[in-house]
């Protein structure tokens, strides 16, 4: 492969600048945090010395110092989030109350449209099906597999194979599965694996991706295929982290594997389970590429993120697209409340 280093020079230079900026920003921040407090500390010490010399009451450590530290630690994140996500989220919410061209206020009209158009209602139900099934199926599968594969031979290989789809983009995965679901007329050779199986069992080839509601389940299968590996790896790690003495003690008490699973394993991996379910739920709410690549939202398979993109970018309906996005924000509220409860428990525990 001929390769012109000179032509690519600028890119490496830019990459170099990027890395330099990284070192400068992060290093600078840490340095600042190191130098400034020690300067304060010295001054505080000096005050202490002066105070003890004069016999005045000892000054206390200033309380807001902690807050100041926190601010510096959080500053880059907060700034970036404000520009990249908070601003856009507010803008989206405002746009959802405006018309297609974002010129006039229309009140709740876009929301009215959302809940009255049968096609959109279908989109909302589909999203609901997705967000219930994907975390449930992917997590259960990952958990069962993690338990099954624990301590067997070839564990590493078996786990790698399940995790492999994580490395594939959503688009790539959808292409792979579109290939599996492909249809050819019954007078021809099938090129899709699933239809080949159907045909060799004596059935008629089916249009898997065109038959609602089966097609939504088949698309969900793609997401499960990608995410089960994530669930499996996290949960498997959690299972391995259960202290051996607990497991041994339970075994000595003569518990069944079933009891072991529910009474020892499950309570111990609960935090990992929560991470998995929460992460999968949010990823599922935002799923976009799979539906887009596999069916383009046809045959009653569309989901909110896909419809939102169509409305806002393809149809020039900013208001309606934004209303769909706001509905996504609303759907995440239960997860947020659950997370708050968890945090409370953690703080108390």
């Amino acid at each position, binding site marked *: 492969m001929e390769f012109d280093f000179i032509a690519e020079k600028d890119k490496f230079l830019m990459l170099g600048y990027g890395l330099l900026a990284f070192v400068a920003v992060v290093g600078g921040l840490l340095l600042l945090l*190191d130098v400034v407090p020690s300067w304060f500390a010295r001054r505080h010490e000096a005050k202490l010395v002066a105070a003890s010399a004069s016999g005045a009451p000892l000054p206390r450590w200033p309380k807001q110092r902690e807050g100041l530290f926190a601010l510096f630690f959080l500053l880059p994140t907060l700034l970036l989030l404000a520009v990249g996500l908070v601003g856009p989220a507010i803008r989206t919410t405002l746009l959802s109350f405006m018309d297609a061209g974002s010129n006039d206020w229309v009140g709740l009209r876009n929301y009215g449209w959302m809940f009255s158009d049968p096609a959109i209602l279908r989109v909302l139900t589909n999203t609901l099906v997705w967000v219930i099934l994907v975390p449930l199926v992917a997590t259960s599968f990952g958990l069962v597999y993690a338990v099954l594969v624990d301590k067997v031979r070839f564990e590493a290989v078996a786990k790698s194979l399940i995790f492999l789809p994580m490395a594939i983009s959503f688009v790539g995965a959808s292409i792979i599965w579109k290939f599996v679901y492909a249809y050819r007329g019954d007078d021809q050779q099938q090129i899709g694996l699933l239809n080949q199986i159907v045909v060799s069992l004596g059935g008629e080839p089916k249009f898997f991706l065109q038959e609602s509601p089966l097609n939504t389940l088949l698309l969900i299968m793609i997401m499960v295929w990608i995410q089960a590996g994530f669930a499996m790896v996290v949960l498997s790690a959690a299972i391995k982290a259960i202290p051996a003495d607990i497991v041994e003690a339970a075994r000595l008490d003569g518990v069944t594997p079933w009891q072991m699973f529910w009474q020892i394993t499950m309570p111990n991996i609960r935090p990992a389970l929560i991470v998995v379910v929460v992460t999968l739920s949010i990823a599922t709410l935002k799923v976009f590429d799979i539906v887009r690549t596999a069916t383009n939202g046809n045959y009653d398979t569309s989901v909110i993120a896909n419809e939102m993109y169509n409305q806002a970018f393809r149809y020039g309906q900013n208001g309606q697209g934004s209303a769909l996005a706001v509905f996504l924000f609303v759907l995440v509220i239960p997860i947020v409340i659950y997370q708050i409860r968890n945090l409370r428990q953690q703080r108390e525990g």
Partner: protein
Amino acid sequence: MTTATPTVGAGAQATGATTTASRVRKRLNSRTATVVSIVIAVLWTVPTFGLFISSFRPEDQIKTTGWWTAFTDPQFTLENYQQVLFGSGSSGRLISYFINSLAITIPSVLFPIAFASLAAYALAWINFRGRDWLYIAIFALQIVPLQMALVPLLKFFSTGVTIAGVQVLPAWNLVDEQKFAQVWFAHTCFALPFAVFLLHNFISQLPGDLMEAARVDGASHPRIFRTIVLPLITPALAAFGIFQFLWVWNDLLVALIFADGGDETAPLTVRLAELAGSRGNEWQRLTAGAFVSIVVPLIVFLSLQRYFVRGLLAGSVKG
């Protein structure tokens, strides 16, 4: 399941005969588990494997017969890879896009790791008012669909920020490869909520007495962060790093908007989407293209997978 109770209970008894029996049974059990888990693993891999085989098959074969027929009637070619890698016409240099992908991905992984670990530490171990609410707010930001952030962020780059007619921040006015900076910025923004969520999970579960001891010794927060927290969460950082790498490497939408489509800045995904898309169902290009794009994440994943498992392990130590 209740019937299983006596058998396993017997296994726990320390008498010689039952121990042998249970050992046999245990070996049998683990053998079944091995077989079942390998069967599932193989099933899980079949779709990818099919695509892999297809990518070496000639175009007419891909379109008319299933990939499994390649076993009975093997016909293989490198033509598909030839087409995808060296392409046709002006923009055949895939290597150029490859470098773009690297130049986009590396900083886009480093920045969020650094910023998020700082933030996660502050949220977990620095006492200040409203930190839980701040954490919840950052967590909730995960839901903002990045599609809705594209236009405002693009505006931020191209026109700067103006408040009440006063230019607060200037436009970036970047050209060619300088546009990488926009992509880094965008990817960092979009990655932060998940990164903070994940890292907070790990950092907040580090043993509290460790921090207490350091505080008593008079260590400042930056010092604790550097000397105690960072070494402990390295595996977690690696875990998030892999995620972020996979995500950025596979991203199409962000690159399409913030990097433009020329060979100066567009990553591999943009190029492959073009190759595959311009002629409809060109399975032969799609299959080979998909594999070209999978190779790097696969290598990264396989070589870092050790860290990955350890990283997640570290988080659940305190269960």
